[in-house]
């Protein structure tokens, strides 16, 4: 640092002595008074940039700490079931006997895992054709006012709080299922229908983006070859957007898997292996939310719930991983 300054001082002095840079005249004073220290100081712009960099780094560090803390905390409590309460992991994953307050041999999440996957897959399965149809309509057929109206309707659906969906399910869907299929109406079918409406906008808007990302040239070339609009859509647009559509479906599934409140209101919350689509059952999230407040921190019932949370966290990481994998492949 100081060597640099010395060098600079020398250069300046030499320049002044030789008068090679006649325009350098500081305050009309004698040229030998040039303050090299001031010249080498950081300018205002540099300082600004440093501040900005610092703040950005700070934000990244904080978020990093937060993520590590969340994973660490959930992991610590979730694994306590297996380390300190000595629950067998196989038993936890495959048994469906759930009554943690009765001891460590009653901590089986099997029924909840099956139900969670069932509602998620079914909801995605029903929602996807609708989402693709709506997205096709919005991008390929209607490019005017109606399309933007649809867009805002979809955005509206996202904004509705999940408790409203749950209440609608409780007052409309459950009684309807009861009259049509019998039973109590609570169960996987009701949850699937509610989740269908909730994930539809997510999948749709991402599918719209997928179709918009297909280059116009492809459509034009297809038309130039004499293909009809439908042939273009089926053979060109859908193919080109395939991996992005898959990503959209997985995002929708991630949302369905993590949804708690609305599902809790219509699924019936009986921790039983679902016998059919209209028998009361329970998902991971519905058990987690309905029981967390009633357990005492650090006891087996509480740790068992944290294990469910850990399972959910692992699933959402898995969904993320899947999205990245598909993104890379395309």
């Amino acid at each position, binding site marked *: 640092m100081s060597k640099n300054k010395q060098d600079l001082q020398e250069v300046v002095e030499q320049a002044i002595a030789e008068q090679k840079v006649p325009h350098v005249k500081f305050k009309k004073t004698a040229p030998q008074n040039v303050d090299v220290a001031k010249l080498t100081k*950081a300018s205002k712009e540099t300082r600004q940039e*440093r*501040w900005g*960099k*610092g*703040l950005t*780094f*700070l934000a990244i*560090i904080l978020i990093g700490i937060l993520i590590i803390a969340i994973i660490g905390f959930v992991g610590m409590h979730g694994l306590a079931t297996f380390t300190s309460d000595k629950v067998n992991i196989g038993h936890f994953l495959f048994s469906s006997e759930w*009554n943690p*307050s009765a001891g460590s041999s009653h901590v089986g999440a099997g029924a909840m895992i099956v139900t969670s996957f069932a509602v998620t897959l079914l909801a995605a399965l029903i929602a996807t054709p609708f989402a693709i149809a709506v997205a096709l309509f919005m991008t390929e057929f209607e490019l005017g006012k109606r399309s933007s109206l649809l867009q805002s309707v979809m955005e509206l659906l996202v904004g509705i709080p999940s408790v409203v969906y749950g209440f609608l399910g*409780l*007052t409309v869907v*459950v*009684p309807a299922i*009861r009259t049509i299929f019998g039973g*109590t*109406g*609570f169960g996987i079918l009701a949850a699937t229908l509610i989740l269908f409406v909730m994930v539809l906008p997510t999948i749709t808007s991402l599918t719209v983006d997928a179709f918009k990302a297909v280059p116009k040239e492809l459509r034009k070339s297809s038309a130039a070859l004499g293909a009809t609009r439908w042939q273009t859509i089926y053979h060109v647009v859908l193919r080109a957007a395939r991996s992005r559509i898959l990503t959209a479906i997985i995002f929708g599934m991630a949302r369905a898997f993590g949804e708690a409140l609305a599902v*809790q*209101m219509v699924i*019936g*919350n*009986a*921790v*039983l292996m679902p016998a059919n689509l209209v028998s*009361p059952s*329970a998902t991971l999230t519905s058990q987690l*939310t*309905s*029981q*967390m*407040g*009633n*357990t*005492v*921190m*650090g*006891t087996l*019932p*509480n740790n068992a719930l944290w294990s469910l949370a850990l399972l959910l966290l692992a699933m959402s990481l898995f969904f993320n991983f899947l999205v990245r994998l598909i993104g890379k492949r395309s």
Partner: protein
Amino acid sequence: MRKNNLGSLLTLILFVPLLLVGCSKDQAKITVVGASSVQPLVEQAGNDYHLAHLSSNIVVQGGGSGTGLSQVQAGAVEIGTADVFAETQPGINARKLVDHQIAVVGIVPIANKDVGVSNLSAKNLMRIFTGKITNWRQVGGKNLPIIVINRSRGSGTRTIFEDLILQGKEAINSQEQDSNGTVKKIVSSTPGTISYISFPYANDSHIQKLSINQVKPVNHNILTNKWPLWAYEHMYTKGKPSKSTAAFIDYVLSEKVQKNLVPKTGYLSIHEMKVSRDSKNKITKIGDPHEQK
């Protein structure tokens, strides 16, 4: 130049939390966390107390009895509310906590309007919830399968109900619902359902309240334990409460709150009770035994 950069970063990291801490001036802040069943009462009392003592700051949160007890045990909050005795909860050291009972709430079995039954014996009620009786016909009602809707495992209301009605027997694995409101909604709309809710929620005509052993579920039957299904609302503090916390608890127990706010929100005043119950459900009469005859 890198060194300088790091330095400003360090100052930021050090100063931001300091600033945040400096902002929250602590002026007799009392945090109440726990049972959602008592939340409306404490919230209203907290508001009134704040208006009378402007320097006070009372924050009321739900979260459930288990949360309330573990938070107050950990010293994270000043008051933890619960509708179960701390002694009955594993993982809670009740000797470190001080119990302040602030009100009593009744619990009533309810059924769908169309089951054709308005009274059940305690024994039949037990048989229904343990799955021995599965049709309303067996208890003098319509030919309709019984659908049991239980409360979430570990909830205060369920604990009381199972202690007093099931007497140690295991309830059948059935639907579970978390809140009084949802239970009421389901029972009123689903044929053949039975469940139980707190008195404050059982105030409309869409559901059938059930008498037990011909005793009607009304408040004055609770005072003498003629109606046995009732629970205390507890406020737990860790050790002796601080001065400001004690002042708030005294306010909740004062005539003004117990005479007006407590009945208005559907509870019973703790002062009116003619019996008391301990954590093992042993009933003792309050006051002079000669007067009780």
